[in-house]
């Protein structure tokens, strides 16, 4: 698409922090975002995602010593109206006194963009945006005649119409119901790829983060826990927080001996030493990173437990297994003969299934 020329903006955050009153809700954050990249800020409520986004937008001034660069240009002291950022809010924030068309065209009338547009240029641009978001038929409606999904499409069209340097989205799908959310998420994904625009997307929904992000920034309590591709975040979490926040994780307590990890209440190691970033007294693995032993032959390093709860979740069965030493783990696997409650279950943790995280908490 030729409308991308001005949109390839690289963003660098240098020690961006924010203090409200006496509390530093955002610890100094350094983050480099490539041109055209979609970065997702993911974390639990109150961890500072919105604050970071608002600092990038210029709505919030960061603490002294912070710097924000757009293509190496320092924009830290530039107010939002001069930063050329497109924003999409959870609450849509459409102008109720304007039609859909006027909303979409608003950013073209403020004269702040890079380009000088004639009336004809503006009209063409608006039509393109309406078409792109498939809302041509709604163009002359007022905002209160739109559904939530339609409103968010209008908001997206309005945000990208002036060709902003970066698109900032703060939980744009949270107010929508589940099916609509999935549809629009896919559409946003396609849109961001098509436009090649640099985008920062805030969410507390990990599946949304996985689906949209080129890279995910996992945050907690005002700090960045990990930055990485969805695969890296999932398979190589930096720490317990990331491991447990992203996806389901089993944490077995026990100890790391010289031959591997020995779970509490067992004698033989179940995970070889070389697999893990061993340490502490926990071993973590994903529910799906196990091999079932259904023919009953006792392989070495297998774990044996009793099935407690069995649930069919479509692609596989999810079984909660009670192990010796009063520990439970969740397994997800395609059983040929799913167990019944009380049946013995035999499984092995896959060689590279052990997550490289450790903790000294029991």
């Amino acid at each position: 698409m030729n409308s991308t020329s001005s949109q390839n903006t690289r963003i660098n955050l240098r020690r961006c922090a924010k203090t409200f009153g006496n509390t530093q809700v955002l610890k100094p954050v350094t983050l480099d975002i490539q041109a055209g990249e979609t970065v997702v800020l993911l974390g639990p409520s109150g961890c500072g995602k919105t604050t970071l986004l608002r600092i990038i937008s210029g709505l919030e001034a960061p603490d002294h010593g912070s710097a924000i660069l757009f293509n190496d240009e320092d924009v830290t002291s530039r107010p939002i109206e001069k930063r050329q950022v497109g924003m999409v809010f959870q609450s849509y924030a459409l102008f109720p006194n304007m039609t859909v068309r006027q909303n979409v065209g608003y950013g073209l009338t403020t004269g702040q963009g890079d380009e000088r547009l004639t009336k004809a240029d503006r009209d063409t641009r608006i039509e393109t945006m309406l078409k792109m978001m498939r809302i041509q038929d709604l163009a002359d409606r007022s905002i209160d005649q739109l559904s939530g999904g339609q409103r968010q499409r209008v908001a997206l069209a309005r945000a990208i119409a002036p060709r902003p340097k970066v698109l900032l989205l703060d939980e744009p799908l949270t107010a929508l119901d589940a099916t609509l959310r999935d549809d629009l998420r896919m559409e946003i994904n396609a849109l961001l790829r098509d436009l090649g625009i640099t985008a920062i997307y805030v969410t507390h929904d990990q599946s949304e983060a996985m689906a949209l992000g080129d890279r995910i920034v996992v945050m907690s309590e005002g700090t960045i826990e990990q930055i990485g591709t969805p695969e890296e975040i999932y398979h190589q979490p930096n720490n317990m927080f990331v491991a447990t926040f992203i996806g389901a994780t089993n944490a077995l307590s026990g100890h790391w001996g010289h031959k591997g990890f020995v779970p509490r209440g067992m004698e033989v190691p179940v995970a070889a030493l070389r697999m893990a970033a061993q340490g502490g007294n926990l071993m973590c693995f994903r529910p799906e990173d196990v091999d079932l032993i259904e023919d009953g032959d006792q392989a070495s390093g297998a774990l044996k437990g009793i099935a407690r709860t069995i649930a069919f979740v479509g692609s596989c069965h999810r079984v909660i297994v009670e192990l010796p030493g009063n520990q439970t783990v969740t397994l997800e696997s395609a059983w040929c003969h799913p167990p019944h409650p009380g049946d013995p279950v035999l499984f092995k943790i896959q060689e590279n299934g052990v997550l490289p995280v450790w903790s000294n908490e029991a």
Partner: protein
Amino acid sequence: MKHTSHFMGLLLLPAGVLVLAFFALPMVKLIVTGASGEEGLAAYWSILTVERHREALIATLLLSALVTLVALIISTIVGVFLVRNRFPGSQILVSLLTFPLAFPGVVIGFLIIMLAGRQGLIGMVSQTLTGSKLVFAYSMTGLFLGYLYFSIPRVILTVMAAAEKLDVSLEEAARSLGASQWRVITDVLLPALKPGLIASGAICFATSVGAFGTAFTLATNIDVLAMTIYTEFTLGANLASAASLSVVLGLITWAALSIARSLSGSNVAAAG
């Protein structure tokens, strides 16, 4: 069903009689009285043909319009500011600003005399500073100030109520799209406040058109419609003329309020 509606009808009858007796009859009487003078129905034209009446009408309308405009401007700025900025003492300031709401016109009149009368504050200050005494309480200016004084609280309260409900993200969205401060005000803030401004502006206008107490306290020679009615009635003993002017005055306030009601879509009632 039939029974109930009969029953309801019976209940409504006394209510109807009451409404007729209390509201309609005096009004009819007033209208009839207005036409009972020597000129008959033409008395109603006197407001346009008699110079003194016409000038009173124009003065009243101009004064009320000006009061409304200035009250809206000041109250919008102050109201939005007070909602957006909480500072120590802001609560006290709000109660102070809305205090005159409860004052009768006479009290407002006195306050203006205290401020700009012969013994007033402004007069004293101007005398010490420039040597000449500045007195404007007993004129249109004094009246303007007085009306402003009791109009502002009402508008401020309406603006503040509307401003509390403003969606801040709308303004943030506008700014992200490059809107200047001024554009944010004209495109987002004022449209959101519009219904409240129309409603309170109409009340402000209607109240100013009809207010009497303040004018009466300040001076008897201020020519606003309410004063003209009073002089026609007491000094001139011209009942027909007073009545016809009253009907016109009533019509103007009624029109102001109903126009506002149809524009703002909310309930508007005059007071004061």
